[in-house]
């Protein structure tokens, strides 16, 4: 009898086995490989390509003295805070709240417009954003039509351009999450608060937001991790330039590993990126648990 329940217990995990195997092969495998490579001097070509030497923490020591690394780290934080935590998150929330009050037609038009950017494949969205911000692009033609200055956005303001592009691209996700969350807020609660004399802002701050804080934490976690990993958008728009002014960690890792053929150093950068993602993930999961209490 006991043996049978044991077998049954094991069998119960069987359906998740394919998923676990796939995760191990396609996710954990590369992560472990990258971790291992970051302790070697593996190169794309040259003497160390096929038989790399174990060099311990040398790549990480190099990171600490590399002047580009702190810059890149700062840009990554700026990119995540600016485009995800503030941009996509707040804009998505605002759109979701406003759309509840808007006429159906307005809300449908706005919703479609916002989601359109999300539907585009990343490479297409990246080229669209490049065409918009480039020197003779749409934005400058609009500004020119108004008789305003036409700066070279990708050169003079590369971070602003990629942050705005990522907000445009990703807001739809936050908007959809918050629309779903807001639909779950029972209207009786808001009505009760209204009877007690709470204004619109007060109802949002004291009733609505606390009730959807679980969704806020989930949303923040997903968009943070997504934005940390953004590569194509920045690569197509600025390729990390000019003079590294927009090279976030994924761009830096790619450049080191593939442009300069230094796979060991590139994977060290990638490992740091994974660690940052893990820290963010842990913080948000913590938040999620607390919000459930």
């Amino acid at each position, binding site marked *: 009898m006991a043996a049978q329940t044991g077998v049954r217990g094991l069998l119960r995990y*069987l359906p998740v086995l*394919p998923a676990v195997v796939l995760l191990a092969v396609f996710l954990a495998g590369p992560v472990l490989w990258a971790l291992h490579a970051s302790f070697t001097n593996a*190169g794309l*070509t040259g*003497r160390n*390509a096929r038989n790399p030497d174990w060099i311990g923490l040398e790549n990480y020591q190099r990171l600490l003295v590399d002047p580009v690394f702190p810059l890149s780290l700062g840009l990554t934080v700026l990119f995540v805070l600016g485009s995800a935590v503030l941009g996509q998150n707040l804009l998505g929330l605002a759109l979701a709240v406003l759309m509840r009050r808007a006429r159906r037609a307005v809300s449908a038009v706005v919703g479609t417009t916002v989601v359109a950017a999300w539907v585009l494949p990343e490479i297409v969205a990246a080229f669209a954003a490049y065409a918009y911000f480039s020197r003779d692009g749409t934005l400058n033609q609009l500004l020119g039509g108004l008789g305003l200055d036409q700066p070279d956005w990708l*050169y003079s303001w590369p971070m602003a351009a990629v942050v705005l592009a990522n907000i445009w691209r990703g807001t739809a996700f936050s908007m959809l999450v918050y629309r779903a969350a807001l639909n779950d807020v029972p209207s009786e609660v808001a009505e009760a608060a209204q009877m007690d004399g709470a204004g619109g802002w007060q109802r949002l701050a004291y009733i609505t937001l606390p009730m959807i804080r679980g969704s806020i934490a989930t949303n923040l976690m997903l968009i943070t991790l997504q934005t940390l990993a953004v590569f194509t958008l920045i690569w197509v728009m600025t390729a990390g330039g*000019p*003079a590294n002014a927009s090279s976030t960690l994924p761009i830096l890792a790619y450049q080191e590993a593939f442009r300069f053929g230094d796979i060991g150093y590139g994977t060290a950068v990638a490992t740091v990126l994974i660690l940052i993602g893990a820290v963010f993930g842990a913080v948000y999961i913590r938040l999620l648990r607390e919000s459930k209490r």
Partner: protein
Amino acid sequence: MRGPALKTMSLIASALVVLTACTPGAPEDGSKTLKVVYQKTDSFTALETMFQAAKQEFEAANQGVTVELQPIQGNDDDYGTKLALALRSPSTAPDVFYEDTFKVRSDVDAGYLLKLDSHLEGWEDWDKFDDGAKAAGRADDGGTYAVPLGTDTRAIWYNRKVFEAAGITLPWQPRNWQEILDTARKIKANDPSVVPFNMYAGKGTGEGTVMQGFYELLYGTGSMLYDEETKKWVVGSAGFTDSLAFLKTLYDEGLAVTPAEALDANVWKKVFGEWFPNAKLGATVEGSYAPSFWQDGGSYEWPGYEQDMGVAPFPTQDGGGPGAVSMSGGWTLAIGAGTKEPDLAFSFLSTAMNRDNSLAFTLDSSQIAVRSDVAEDSGYQSANPFVKDVSELVSVTRYRPATSDYPRISAAVQEATEAVITGARSPEQAASDYDAAVADIVGGDNTIRK
């Protein structure tokens, strides 16, 4: 409860069967496959044409052999990355592939390339190859690992209409740097809307910055990047600072494009596609392959470019030395070290590079011929009016120091030019940044002050 569990198990089992069925089995007796990897872009299909022809010819002559063509679509950088990744693992490494000359040495170091000496001995065509070009496929051990497809040189391309409008006598041939500046200033004074003399700079144009720009300057000062005798990288040279200062003058005085335009990776497309044809650009340093963009079937067809364009060798700093500077690159075909069919692979390589295929490829891609029988062909000599001028530059041309450290050094040079044209650093500061970067990359012992 048993039913569903069994069902799941059998599903997984059948999935595993399907998965294992996907892995390639051993080839059947007699049939052999050669995997060929090369670059193909919308503006570069010459190689595709050549390999398609070679495939037909080769498969007809060798029954039971399949040539599997695997073009990689991408620019030079991306192609190099993808090829290097494929070469890393024996199971993905191609048998025959298109290889940049400046990667040959580091790929030999990596053990990716097959030594071809024994095969070349028995190939009668090998004697027809130019000795200078043969050197591009040779590694430090003296063995030959790659067969050159063609080469190129770099020179000043100028628009005769722009020069005529500014009252400059043609044909133009600057004797030193100062004459370039004088001419450029004259053009600017005559028509400020024209870019008088552009030179690539910054990281946006990548290797273009150094190959079509900085190295022409540096090697014209008597300095160099790498000392072949001591096998050390040169730092602290006055020539390096002078070259940066020349770029600074060009950009500060508005004789070149704006720094913002220079840093756009697509600026060369405007040079070929817009500015030269529309007489908005006086001159620039570009490769001998420039006509391939303008001729019939090129990416930027320009009927009449033969009359409107002129070509001149890039002068040395003060007119000394050989009087002209040029840089050469070029591509080769190589065979993977792990190939199971070395004889067959070499046989395919020699078919792809026989006289007829080589001639067609050389014409199609505006290369400089490396085979004497192609160079003598009347079709080659009359392909465009510039063939003779750019081919003569082979006598003064230089190759890049193709060691495994080179890509990083090149990036450091590009960074120095970027810092100077954007005004972030003075030429002296940028040169000392470069010296520090080089010492960092190769170690202080491997640098030499000259």
